[in-house]
């Protein structure tokens, strides 16, 4: 067990204590291990000299008069929950990592994944061949009901084997591409492939940037007009005479607009904006420009976040269902690919969830 593993396991078991106390204990143990390593022991040995983590945690908790079994039943209940939680976290890591990749590496990743799936599909052939060999052998040598039972048992075993191979291959693929490590840390492989890319900005940043640009321009469009309505001295006016009259005019207009909030108010506001048009001209055109951009970005946002994912998902689901139906009619031998397709269907859900969460994150930034 490594030092960090040991410490995190210990921390997990001491959760019931005050966080300050936990830090204190962890610090001391970490220091002890460091010193042992300085005196020439290996990390493994230094950790091993503490004995089992369970026993250690039990003794520490007893020192605090805490019943060491306080969460035994809860822990057993939580075991399943922990697994699910871990699985979800890994899925989250995968999506986070995918989003932090650049476009090029993403394309490469996708192509690699398609190749992997193809290889796995081809791999089904020799497994089928072995299976039919075995079942043929047993069918020929053993009398009927027994051979049937053994045959179905074998079929189940081979299916399980194939499923295990598929899952393992996908796991290795994800791990090798550094998709399983927490987002932000990249494995060596991931770094290498990224270095070769011309465009190294992560796809996440590209999208976030566009979303931010979209929302800031939208703000400009909304704030552009009210800012001109503000009464008050305007020091940058070209002539002093105008400068004295001007502050009153918008105030009067503002009063009028207050009197007729729904009808003429709107017009008045526009008129009030007119005299001051010389100064805030760049702002005004900026707002116009922003409005144009707003429409443009709205279209692009709709494209990015609604149409493409929707079309993609519908396509994926239709294809997957079609393939599933085919597999079902082809017979039970196609159990493996069917599960893969089922997995793909399930994978579509977190991917769309990740994409939609992006939209909301972009909104939260600004």
């Amino acid at each position, binding site marked *: 067990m490594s030092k960090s593993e040991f410490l995190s396991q210990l921390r997990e078991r001491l959760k019931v204590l005050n966080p300050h106390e936990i830090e*204190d*204990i962890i*610090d*001391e*143990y970490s*220091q*002890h291990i*460091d*010193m*042992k390593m300085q005196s020439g022991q290996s990390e493994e040995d230094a950790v091993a*000299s*503490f*004995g*089992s983590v369970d*026993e*250690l945690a039990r*003794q*520490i908790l*007893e*020192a*605090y*008069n805490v019943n060491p079994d306080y969460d035994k039943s809860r822990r057993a209940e939580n075991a399943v929950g922990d697994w699910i939680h871990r699985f979800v976290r890994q899925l989250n890591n995968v999506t986070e990592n995918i989003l932090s990749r650049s476009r090029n590496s993403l394309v490469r990743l996708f192509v690699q994944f398609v190749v992997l799936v193809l290889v796995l599909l081809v791999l089904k052939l020799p497994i089928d061949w072995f299976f039919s060999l075995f079942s043929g052998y047993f069918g020929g040598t053993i009398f009927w009901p027994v051979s049937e039972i053994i045959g179905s048992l074998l079929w189940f075993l081979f299916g399980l084997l194939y499923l295990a191979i598929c899952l393992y291959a996908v796991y290795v693929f994800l791990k090798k591409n550094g998709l399983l490590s927490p987002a932000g840390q990249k494995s060596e492989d991931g770094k290498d492939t990224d270095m070769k890319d011309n465009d190294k900005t992560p796809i996440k940043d590209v999208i976030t940037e566009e979303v931010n640009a979209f929302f800031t321009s939208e703000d400009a469009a909304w704030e552009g007009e009210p800012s001109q309505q503000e009464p008050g001295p305007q020091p940058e006016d070209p002539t002093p005479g105008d400068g004295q009259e001007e502050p009153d005019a918008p105030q009067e207009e503002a009063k009028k607009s207050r009197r007729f909030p729904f009808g003429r108010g709107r017009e008045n506001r526009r008129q009030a904006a007119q005299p001051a048009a010389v100064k805030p001209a760049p702002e005004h055109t900026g707002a116009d420009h922003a409005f144009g951009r707003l429409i443009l970005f709205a279209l692009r946002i709709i494209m990015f976040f609604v149409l493409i994912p929707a079309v993609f998902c519908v396509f994926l689901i239709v294809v997957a269902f079609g393939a599933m139906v085919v597999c079902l009619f082809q017979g039970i031998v196609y159990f493996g690919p069917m599960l893969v397709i089922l997995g793909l269907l399930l994978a579509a859900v977190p991917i769309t969830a990740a994409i939609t969460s992006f939209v909301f994150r972009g909104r939260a930034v600004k």
Partner: protein
Amino acid sequence: MTTQFKKGVLELVVLLAVTKKDMYGYELVSEVSRFIDVGEGTIYPLLKRLTNERYFETYLAESSEGPPRKYYHLTRRGSMYKDDLLRQWIDFREKVDLFIKECDPHEQK
């Protein structure tokens, strides 16, 4: 020496070790394990317990290398407890020695 023996005596040994001077965890563990072969896993929880019972005080002190170390200091209360334990131990040892002599067939007349 069996684990039961060790466990009973360990508390006294740890208290005695700190009587000489204040020590930090690692130092204390290496000092104690010179005499009693005991796992680190046993000593640290014991230190924790003795601290919680206010026989020890702890304070942090800078070290020449690495992060600051947590030193254990024997309090007055701890010192009294140690004396008491020591008296019990000596008393106990004398009685056991006496009993061993009594039971020794060669000594009997």
